[in-house]
């Protein structure tokens, strides 16, 4: 397993980047590894990691989803409408069930448009994001709502001294290990590599890519659940700002935007890198007005890194 992982060079560059980032963060913020600080970081990362995991699956299959942020918002407002401060376990279960179904339905809508009607994914999912935002705004016109205290405390808790969110990441990675071996995922890799070749070898291209969007919807719903546990309230625009970072994280993690290669592990690493870059900028005391610029330049350099290395190697050869 470990050796296979190391031989798989896809994750090598992102992993090195992450180690450098963690090292710098530890240097600037010596209490980085203290449970309280670590837990705080993981709480911020987990929802975006789950979302980027879904995005990775869609991108592997050669698609892309710009509606993920709006889906997160939609599920978030639905959750805080169904669950109130006084809710007990039945309402919580109902809320979770409805959230997952809603995510799957939203993803299915994207899937129908892209896979069956053959619309172009970038613009189509941009269009459906308006639909999801509109419905979210109808469900919750003004930010508000609150969850039972037990739920938000659970998200912050650290059973056995390990943050609950760390368990969340482990579960996400385990889920990927299982999913990766399925026929479905193998089909998605084949479709992303070459749709024509996949079709020729008997893969049902439209059906499988339809389900990649449904899976995305389910992951968006899961991400929304984590985010709602983290914020404890609802806002019809809550997830909007997560769309583009979810894509950047996938690419940082070594997944090709053209499809056919990459994985969820990379996306998880990508999110960790993005979050730690933010930390670094805060703890390096970068003046407020320069923070956006530093953030963007570092991300661009991280994206360019593998390409620059390749360019130098080609020059030498």
């Amino acid at each position, binding site marked *: 397993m470990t050796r296979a992982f190391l031989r798989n060079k896809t994750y090598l560059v992102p992993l090195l980047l992450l180690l450098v980032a963690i090292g710098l963060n530890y240097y600037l913020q010596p209490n980085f590894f203290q449970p309280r600080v670590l837990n705080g970081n993981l709480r911020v990362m987990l929802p975006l990691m789950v979302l980027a995991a879904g995005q990775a699956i869609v991108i592997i299959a050669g698609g*892309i989803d*710009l509606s993920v942020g709006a889906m997160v918002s939609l599920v978030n407002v639905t959750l805080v409408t169904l669950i109130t401060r006084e809710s007990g376990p039945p309402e919580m279960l109902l809320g979770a069930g409805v959230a997952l179904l809603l995510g799957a339905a939203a993803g299915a809508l994207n899937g129908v*448009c892209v896979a069956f*009607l*053959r*619309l*172009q994914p*970038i*613009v*189509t999912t*941009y*269009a*459906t*994001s*308006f*639909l*999801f*935002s*509109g*419905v979210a*705004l*109808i469900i919750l*016109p003004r930010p508000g709502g609150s969850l039972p205290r037990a739920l938000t405390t659970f998200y912050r808790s650290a059973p056995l001294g390990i943050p609950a969110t760390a368990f969340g990441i482990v579960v996400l990675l385990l889920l990927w290990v299982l999913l990766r071996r399925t026929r479905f995922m193998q089909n998605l890799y084949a479709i992303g590599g070459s*749709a*024509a070749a996949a*079709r020729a070898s008997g893969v049902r291209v439209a059906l499988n890519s339809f389900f990649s969007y449904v899976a995305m919807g389910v992951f968006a719903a899961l991400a929304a659940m984590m985010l709602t546990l983290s914020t404890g309230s609802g806002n019809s625009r809550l997830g909007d700002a997560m769309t*583009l970072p979810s*894509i*950047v994280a996938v*690419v940082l993690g070594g997944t*090709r*935007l*053209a499809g056919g290669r990459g994985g969820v592990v990379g996306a998880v690493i990508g999110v960790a890198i993005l979050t730690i870059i933010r930390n670094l900028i805060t703890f390096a005391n970068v003046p407020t*007005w*320069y*923070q*956006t*610029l*530093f*953030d*963007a*330049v570092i*991300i*661009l350099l991280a*994206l*360019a890194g593998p*390409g*620059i290395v*390749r*360019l130098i190697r080609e020059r030498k050869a």
Partner: protein
Amino acid sequence: MKAFISRIPPAAVALVLSVLLFFAGGLVQPDFLNAAQAINIVRLAAFLGIIAAGQTLVIIAGGEGIDLSVGAVVTLGAILTFMVSGGNNEGLWLAVLVVIAAGAAIGLVNGLGIVYIRIPPLVMTLGMAGVVQGTILAVTRGDIPGGVPRALANFVTGRFLGVPGAIYIWAVFGLAMWFVLQRTRYGRELFAVGVNRRTAALSGVNVPGVVILTYTLSGVLAALGGLLLLGFTQRVFLTLGESYLFPSIAAVVVGGTVLAGGRGSYFGTMAGALVLTMTESLLRAMRMGEAYQLIVFGGILVVLLSVYGRQRQSN
């Protein structure tokens, strides 16, 4: 029937749709239907259309081509004009030069990153948008001194024969884009590169050169769009151009330019900009709640895309 529909040029479909939408607007909201309103909508569409010009070139060039930096570059163009001219007519020419240079530099870096470092266009231009926004914040610190030259405002909003200047400017843009795409060597090579890079290279086209030039042009056109937009809004803010980013892509696709590259026209983009602006104006005129406006706009966009945004069977 289907074969017949697919033979009508997308630009014509989009154009007919906008006229139909306009009259449909008159049915629900009688005061919507008058010449002043029509002119106003075309004027609004002009800015989206001009900003989408570079996007059209980038998308025709193919190779997953897309420019997500146009929003930030539009803002930069407006802010540079505001600051460099300081509100003086004499400073306007210098501002135009600075705006073109800045747009070209940003587009050039995009092109170099995409061609030589092989960063996918989507993330390269997205990262560049962040860098441009960050630079604006770092330099201005939220406080932007300057002014709008009166000449620019008059040029864009002043009327000649009852039609605002912005529409004339857009028409000139349209003709220039048609000329570039249909009558120049660059235009021919651009389509060749969009259809298939390998065959283009084999037939002697300098593919990297064409792609880099295309992103450079996109930067210049977006920055100029920002300059013109300033003449209309007459004030600057840090998110000025952001709302034009995805509509610029949608306008290109609704106008029949294929995201896979190699096929498309700027007249299509113009008609696409018109349809999108018409739809938005109509929804606003009907005084729907914001939520329903979003839903209907999204729905109409999906329908428009399904008319012409379809991919070929095996992509």
